[in-house]
């Protein structure tokens, strides 16, 4: 084993990359849950985004168009969930699961002819001058644009939720949909938009996996990333910057265990590769054990069915 082969600089830089898909999906799901909707279909939307983005990027040769297609694909898939839960009042847990199962099937169907292909390369931004700063340069200023996009999204989501009227209405709908309805807000419309935003973000997260992080298409390649994103929303207590922290922590664990695998640590590979899931569970336990604060942070109408009656 050679631990000295692990470079801290590279480690931090690559944890940002490892965290980005989960961060994108989690920040989208945060908006969905803030609107009072629990969409357990993140995994399905991510994998659908992964193949949509991959296929379109390969066909057009443009990763950017690929990402746009991934967002559209994720949003479109989430619309099925939206219509079922908001108009047909189906159970959100069951519908979210259905979305995941369907998304996994649909994606592997769509991806059959894309196995083993390399996608067009997404260039690193390589900001001049800044990226030449020793240590900080490679860590902070030498990434692809999606890493920065995800960070910007966190800031925008925070601003949107806390500093705009739309954000206030969204929180109000998630907090008490009956009261929001009584004040004349369109609960269902707000929730549909939130669901589609969540779908688009999950789609982007998936495409980041297939286009940049891996980069290729394999069936079931999200491997639970969507579920981890869901857990990180709980970990982040529905706050954007804590979600960011959670995603980067998770990214750190992932990268570290990969590095340890490469360094030939005397622990079997299987045990190292299960560690991110175990750590996610441990974090969930710690978060839920501190009850008072998290239960306060969870939107009060989360998962409840809204039907405007008499």
């Amino acid at each position, binding site marked *: 084993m050679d631990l000295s082969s692990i470079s801290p600089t590279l480690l931090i830089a690559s944890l940002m990359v490892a965290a980005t898909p989960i961060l994108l999906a989690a920040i989208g799901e945060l908006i969905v849950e803030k609107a009072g909707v629990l969409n*357990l279909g993140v995994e399905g939307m991510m994998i659908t985004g992964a193949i949509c983005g991959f296929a379109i990027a390969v066909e057009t040769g443009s990763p950017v168009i690929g990402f746009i297609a991934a967002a559209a694909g994720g949003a479109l898939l989430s619309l*099925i969930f939206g219509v*079922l839960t908001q108009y*047909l*009042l*189906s*159970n959100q*847990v*069951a*519908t979210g*699961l*259905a*979305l995941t*199962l*369907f*998304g*996994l*099937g*649909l*994606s*592997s*169907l769509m991806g*059959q002819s894309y196995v083993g292909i390399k996608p067009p390369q997404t260039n690193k931004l390589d900001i001049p001058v800044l990226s030449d700063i020793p240590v900080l340069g490679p860590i902070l200023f030498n990434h692809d644009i999606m890493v920065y996009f995800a960070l910007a999204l966190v800031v925008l989501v925070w601003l949107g939720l806390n500093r705009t009227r739309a954000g206030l209405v969204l929180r109000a709908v998630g907090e008490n949909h009956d009261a929001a309805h009584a004040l004349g807000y369109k609960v269902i419309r707000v929730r549909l938009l939130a669901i589609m935003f969540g779908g688009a973000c999950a789609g982007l997260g998936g495409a980041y996996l297939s286009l940049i992080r891996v980069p290729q298409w394999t*069936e079931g390649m999200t*491997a*639970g990333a969507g*579920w*981890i994103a*869901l*857990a990180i929303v*709980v970990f982040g207590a529905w706050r954007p910057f804590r979600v960011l922290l959670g995603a980067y922590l998770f990214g750190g664990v992932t990268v570290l265990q990969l590095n340890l695998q490469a360094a030939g640590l005397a622990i*079997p590979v*299987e*045990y190292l*590769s*299960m560690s991110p*899931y*175990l750590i*996610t*569970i441990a974090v*969930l*336990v710690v978060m*839920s*054990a501190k*009850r008072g604060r998290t239960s306060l942070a969870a939107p009060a109408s989360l998962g409840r069915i809204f*039907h*405007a*009656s*008499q």
Partner: protein
Amino acid sequence: MIALEKRPTPSRFWTGITPFLAVLATMIAGGIMFAILGKDPFAAIRTIFWDPVFGEFAFYYRSQLLVKAGPLILIAIGLSLGFRAGVWNIGAEGQYIIGAICGAAVGLAFYPTESFLIFPAMVIAGGLGGFLWAMIPGILKVKFQTNEILVSLLLVYVAEAILASMALGALKNPDGAGFPGSRNFRSYPSAYNEDLIANTGMHWGVVFAFIAVIFAYILLSRHMLGFQIKLAGQAPRAARFGGVNPDRLILFCLGVSGMLAGLAGLFEVSGPAGQVSIDFNVGYGFTAIIVAFLGRLHPIGILLAGLLMALTYIGGELAQSNLGLPAAAIQAFQGMLLFFLLAVDVLTNYRLRFGNREVA
């Protein structure tokens, strides 16, 4: 404009009819999907739903029907209890894997001793393995209010990693020339889960599935515990008021569903699959979720839904070999079925009203 109006009492008629509507709608939507894939939709639907039972080689496929339906029904029965109580165990796939590993490990430990006690010991170990694996989210939920959906699901990935390590390490066949995977149970009679009636697919797992159906039916319709399960799911506060201990109920539901999933895994690995290999599990734990909902969380419904879902598996394989339909199409098809079921479900509790009257 169409508006929904809550029914005063849930409609029994629609409760019964909606699964059939959902299947019909899925056939239509699936047909369209198959047509888009360039296959003859009618041929595809016939291959999936008709040929396995009545086609040329039906004598072979009919036995496969029980082989596939057995684990699905066994797992779905357990899940349905939890789903009714609002306890969402969606990690049955993990419990299935762990049950299989534990049961197989007990069997392999006795190799090559032959005794009629070995198989029962494996069954107990399999059930216990699944039970304990499901107790992890259960205890975390009871002690720390940790979300059981996320924990049970994340544990699937952990179980898969354990499976990989077992198939490549501890349980690897020492006489296997370095190939991954354990000894094959077919060559170890005491531990082999053989067809009880030759060539019917009727192995012990199927027997257990039928017993589970009967057990669940009696529990839900005749026993206080079944009543409490329904109560806790529909009105948690009323359940507490009625003296239901929510913690005990959570542990019961997770425990039973974990045990049944573990048993399903053991019967599969010691019978149809034959050995612990890195990918012996084929997603029954997830498909069983569809089976549970399709059967409306009712034991008899699950029995029928399990058979139907088994049919789509076999029909899917058939369509794959005969028509070149991709395997993934069947997975998407099954997902679609669940969507349609959830969509038409609304008719049970709401009625449609046409016209321009506003329901505010």
